[in-house]
């Protein structure tokens, strides 16, 4: 992307500075406008839509720093350069912390100003380019969500719903052996729907967007809910569920839905890859910075050579379709991403035929942050 004729706005109360900037920069091929104070400068900013703004820090009325902040809020991609006297280098540094890209000390030579401005314009070009790429990526992602979520799911859903109607006996009588086949069809199609939704949540997982909606969460409550939801599975597999949590466990910042998903995923794995009479233990604890979650079992374990890859996408320890437990090998990679989106870590230790322990940590909410 190229800027045809980069637009530059000069905001300075000294006429001589405005005129010299305009003269120097116009001769370099820029389109230049200027304003004599902050208020007028911000008005012009809205009308003129500059690529780059030069702001004098010391102006009567609205200060350069305020102007800088308002422009940063309005459009962080507009490059801001402050003009400042030698005596105020420290305030120039301060202004850079507030979004200014560079500063020009007074007095300056024409070469200095054109060099700094051309660097600033280059910066603007890069910012616009990366913004365009980001928008493009966002669009592709959005299209993919629509495509996968709707176009692929819809025909499957329509077929499954017919099978449901047949199985419910609403389409007339069906011979028992045919019912069995219809049930198999239904099950296989539901597996495919499940795969789609897992793949989709992995592919569209956006930690930044998710973090925007974080709240303070009590993991004791999350663990309890997940265990309750899995109690019938545990009974069916004859696996005992044990939970341990200290009173007053510190909160973590996170998403209730995702945290439940993490627990449910790890605990249900521990139940499925277990044996009759086995146990699954969920233990919560904390140190001075983190909340610790340990999900352990005395089940079938994971052979050592597989351990480094269990968090990889589409990796299955039992890679064959005849494996005792059905799965797509996406569960743990989703769990890992969700944990990392919470600023946490996940590790696994396992001994084949002895059992497996997943250790998950989350940064705890410090007491002073709790009010938010």
């Amino acid at each position, binding site marked *: 992307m190229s800027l045809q004729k980069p637009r530059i706005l000069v905001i300075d109360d000294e006429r001589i500075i405005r005129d010299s900037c305009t003269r120097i920069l116009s001769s370099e091929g820029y389109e230049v406008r200027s304003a004599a104070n902050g208020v007028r400068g911000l008005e012009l900013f809205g009308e003129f839509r500059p690529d780059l703004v030069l702001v004098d820090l010391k102006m009567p009325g609205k200060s350069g720093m305020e102007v800088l902040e308002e422009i940063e809020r309005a459009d962080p991609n507009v490059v801001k350069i402050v003009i400042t006297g030698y005596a105020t280098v420290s305030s120039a540094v301060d202004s850079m912390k507030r979004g200014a890209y560079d500063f020009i000390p007074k007095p300056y030579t024409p070469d200095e100003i054109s060099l700094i401005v051309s660097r600033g314009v280059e910066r603007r070009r890069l910012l616009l380019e990366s913004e365009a790429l980001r928008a493009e990526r966002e669009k592709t992602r959005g299209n993919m969500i629509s495509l996968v*979520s709707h176009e692929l799911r819809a025909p499957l859903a329509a077929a499954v719903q017919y099978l449901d*109607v047949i199985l419910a006996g609403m389409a007339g009588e069906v011979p028992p052996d045919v019912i069995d086949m219809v049930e198999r069809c239904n099950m296989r199609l539901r597996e495919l729907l499940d795969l789609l939704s897992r793949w*989709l949540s992995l592919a569209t997982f956006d930690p930044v967007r998710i973090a925007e909606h974080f709240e303070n969460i009590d993991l004791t409550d999350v663990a309890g809910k997940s265990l309750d939801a899995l109690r019938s599975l545990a009974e069916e597999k004859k696996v005992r569920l044990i939970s341990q949590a200290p009173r007053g466990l510190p909160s973590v910042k996170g998403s209730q839905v995702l945290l439940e998903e993490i627990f449910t995923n790890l605990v249900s794995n521990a139940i499925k890859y277990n044996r009759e009479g086995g146990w699954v233990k969920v233990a919560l604890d904390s140190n001075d910075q983190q909340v610790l979650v340990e999900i352990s079992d005395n089940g079938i374990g994971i052979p050592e050579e597989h351990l480094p890859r269990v968090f990889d996408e589409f990796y299955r320890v039992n890679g064959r379709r005849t494996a005792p437990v059905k799965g797509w090998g996406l569960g743990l990679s989703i769990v890992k991403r969700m944990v990392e989106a919470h600023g946490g870590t996940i590790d696994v230790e396992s001994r084949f035929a002895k059992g497996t322990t997943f250790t998950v940590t989350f940064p705890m909410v410090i007491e002073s942050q709790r009010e938010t």
Partner: protein
Amino acid sequence: MKATGKKILIIDDDPDFVRSTGIVLQSAGYEVLEAFSGKEGLEKSRSEKPDLYIIDLMMETYSEGANVIQSLREDEETKDRPRIMITSVDLKGPWESYPQDEWLACDFLLQKPVPPDELLKCVENALKRS
């Protein structure tokens, strides 16, 4: 099957979905009306005065269903009739993690495929609410 005396209008551009949903509803004694676009849905809504609407979210356009709901909401005659929004969009995945958009705000939201008993339960609840 004993007739309930209640009329349900299904608005969905997927004829397979309309058919299977219709069978389920009829089996429970509801009278079923069909519309295959938002426009047809609103026309049938005026002429038939259904007691309940089942509306697909994405039809010709991604928000056609939402527009139908908007129109029903703004009309004095239809604004209090219960509506069930149905979609094939994956509600478990990324959608669930974010607060639902304003235009998705609907008392009843189901994801396709809807198991027959779940559909009937939802219809019953929705009718009770009205």
